[in-house]
């Protein structure tokens, strides 16, 4: 990737990435791991669509279909979308606020490795007796009845990776609160940074309910408790509440960074300041706030009663208001701008109608009485794919093109990028638009096959064709990435030419200390302001001085691997005649606790880059 790494030899590079605490390298790790899981989840999606292509298909069996469907949803949300969002937040947010790293570089690395080991654990279920099969929501009445270890993999895997996510979120919060460059007030922060901030707050409050739900499930399944078993005095609905108290904010955790990326894109490629910046901030915060009061719209049909249904219906519809504010602001940003249709901008423009359609079906679903018709039908499937693919995935693809030069120092091919875009856009609408009607015609979600002559054949076939378009588009993106990396034509600090924020003021990829001198921020779109005044780059806010850097460490890796080992012990100990479960559980926990002890006892003060070295390093520094 970077030239620095290539000089080092393969083993040293691997070691470097295993131990790195640099936010830019951790971002690359998130990008690679998330990208890998995205391909895995995509493969699972293709199996689903092939199975449903024709009536009474037997491409996969009913049981295997449940596993594939469950793993598709779980992988895409927890192991693909989340880490990819984290990749961009890690790569870009510290640069946007003019920081040299995140507040806790060590924790940043720990967060990644926890996510990674959790994800690997979850996916090992395929090879160890069967994957989870109760849907990504894993409703307790279903999952407690599921045989084998599939659900255990789900519970333990998500528990581990969830801890990583929580750590990451807290880290971003502290970073944004404490490490903004001089002059970078809250109301001068770029929209993507704001999105990261609110998203991290949502993570902070949404993941603990999931953790609790998973713990209760873990005790029910592995240690003989009965929290969710009504025959033993438990209550199966409690899981649903915990899951959705987490689950609804989770969908906003995904979409807000997407909004952030698009806000950057609209401003850059319209060559205009983001319209209504302060209302955008307000809308983002409001969405985050309201996001916590609507979770029960997923449970209208569980019998909460008309009052609760009415309250949650109204609260849900209210979210459409701040979302609408944002849509209009983006439109007004483009209005009168000198628009350049680069690949990221094409995604952004396509995002508006696509996502809005998802929002509209959302409001339809939010009406409790109507939801009795739509619930658990393909209409819901169409809704959430319109918002998640048309919103989040579009943003991730757009962000990949936009920030690739910043992360790797070389531009993805624009021509291939546009092919990817068009194929994906067509494939996406082909696959999911028709699913609205499938739902209205009565096709339930999560079924593994359907009978001939129910009027579902043609629409399902169309949907499958669309999926292949998206698959081809993804392959083109991969080829693009490989070819770009091989060619490796280096670009300068502002490859799009119209960068507005601080990340475009430093070289691509930035030196490991980011800013030689912290920049002085004089307003929103800090770099643009300097450009308009005819300056080449940012004015430094401090004299050239020594820079304090953290040391690399393998401890996060070891700490996470301990939990990975412990999870196997916890899972198998309850099996008939198992003797090694408890010892393995204890060994695993000892590894984790031991490495925590080492970390606390060993003083690690980091090191300094000296002023003299920085002076020599002129071509890499801030253009000040």
């Amino acid at each position, binding site marked *: 990737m970077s030239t620095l790494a290539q000089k080092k030899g393969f083993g040293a590079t691997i070691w470097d990435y295993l131990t790195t605490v640099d936010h830019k390298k951790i971002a690359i790790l998130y990008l690679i791991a998330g990208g890998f899981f995205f391909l895995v989840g995509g493969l699972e999606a293709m199996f689903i669509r092939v199975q449903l292509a024709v009536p009474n298909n037997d491409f996969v069996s009913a049981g295997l279909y449940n596993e594939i469907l469950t793993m598709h949803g779980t992988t895409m949300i927890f192991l693909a979308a989340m880490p990819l969002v984290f990749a961009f937040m890690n790569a870009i947010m510290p640069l946007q606020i003019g920081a040299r790293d995140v507040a806790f570089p060590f924790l940043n690395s720990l967060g990644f490795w926890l996510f990674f080991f959790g994800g690997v654990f979850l996916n090992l279920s395929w090879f160890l007796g069967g994957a989870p099969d109760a849907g990504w929501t894993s409703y307790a009445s279903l999952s407690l009845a599921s045989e084998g270890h599939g659900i255990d993999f789900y519970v333990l895997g998500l528990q581990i990776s969830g801890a990583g996510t929580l750590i990451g979120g807290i880290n971003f919060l502290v970073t944004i609160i404490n490490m903004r460059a001089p002059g970078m007030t809250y109301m001068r922060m770029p929209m993507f940074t704001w999105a990261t901030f609110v998203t991290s707050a949502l993570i902070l409050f949404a993941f603990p309910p999931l953790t609790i739900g998973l713990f209760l499930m873990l005790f029910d399944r592995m240690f003989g408790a009965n929290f969710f078993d009504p025959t033993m005095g438990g209550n199966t609905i409690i899981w649903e509440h915990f899951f959705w108290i987490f689950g609804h904010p989770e969908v906003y955790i995904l979409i807000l960074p997407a909004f952030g990326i698009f806000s950057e894109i609209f401003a850059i490629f319209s060559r205009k300041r983001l319209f209504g910046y302060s209302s955008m901030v307000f809308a983002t915060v409001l969405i985050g706030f309201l996001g*916590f009061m609507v979770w029960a719209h997923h449970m209208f049909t569980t019998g909460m009663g008309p009052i609760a249904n009415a309250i949650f219906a109204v609260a849900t519809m209210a979210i459409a208001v701040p979302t609408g504010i944002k849509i209009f602001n983006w439109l007004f940003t483009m209005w009168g701008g000198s628009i350049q249709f680069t690949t990221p901008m094409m995604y952004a423009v396509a995002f508006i109608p696509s996502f809005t359609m998802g929002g509209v079906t959302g409001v339809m679903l939010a009406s409790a009485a109507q939801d009795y018709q739509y619930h658990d039908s393909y209409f819901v499937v169409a809704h959430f794919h319109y918002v998640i693919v048309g919103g989040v995935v579009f943003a991730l693809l757009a962000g990949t093109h936009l920030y690739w030069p910043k992360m790797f120092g070389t531009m993805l091919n624009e021509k291939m990028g546009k092919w990817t875009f068009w194929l994906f856009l067509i494939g996406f609408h082909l696959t999911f638009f028709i699913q609205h009607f499938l739902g209205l015609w009565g096709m339930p979600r999560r079924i593994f096959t359907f009978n001939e002559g129910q009027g579902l054949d043609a629409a399902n076939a169309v949907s499958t064709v669309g999926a292949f378009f998206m698959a081809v588009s993804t392959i083109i993106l991969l080829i693009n990435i490989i070819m770009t990396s091989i060619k490796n034509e280096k670009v300068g600090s502002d490859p799009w030419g119209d960068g507005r924020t601080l990340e475009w003021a430093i070289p691509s990829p930035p030196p490991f200390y980011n800013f030689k001198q*912290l920049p002085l921020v004089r307003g929103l779109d800090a770099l643009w302001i300097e450009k308009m005044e005819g300056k080449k780059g940012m004015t430094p806010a401090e004299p050239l001085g020594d820079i304090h850097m953290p040391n690399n460490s393998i401890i996060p890796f070891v700490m996470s691997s301990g939990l990975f080992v412990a999870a196997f012990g916890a899972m198998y100990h309850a099996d008939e005649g198992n003797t090694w479960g408890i010892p393995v559980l204890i060994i695993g926990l000892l590894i984790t606790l031991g490495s925590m002890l080492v970390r606390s006892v060993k003083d690690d003060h980091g090191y300094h880059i000296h002023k003299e070295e920085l002076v020599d390093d002129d071509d890499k520094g801030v253009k000040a």
Partner: protein
Amino acid sequence: MTNEQLNSGNPKVDIEYRRKKNAEEMRYQIITFALMIFLTLVAFVAVGYEGFSASFAVPFILVLAFVQVAFQLYYFMHMSHKGHEAPALFLYSGVFVGFITVLAFMTVIWW
């Protein structure tokens, strides 16, 4: 990085003022400490005394618990000081989310 040194090494710090401030702080801490012990005793009495029914005792000690938490946060963890706006914001948001959760559980699951 820029925020590392919050209160040390600054020659302009007024030692006299600091000392007075600290003494005042200490006084508050002792008063709240005594109050907290007292409230704890009251809580025990409320539960132990036969004359109070559970429907009085439970809400009553819950109220006492809230007061204790507030004392703890504001006097012992210095949330009354300046520069704690962000922690306060997140704390109250957390309380809010927790409250909504409990409220919902009380009303729609175990009604």
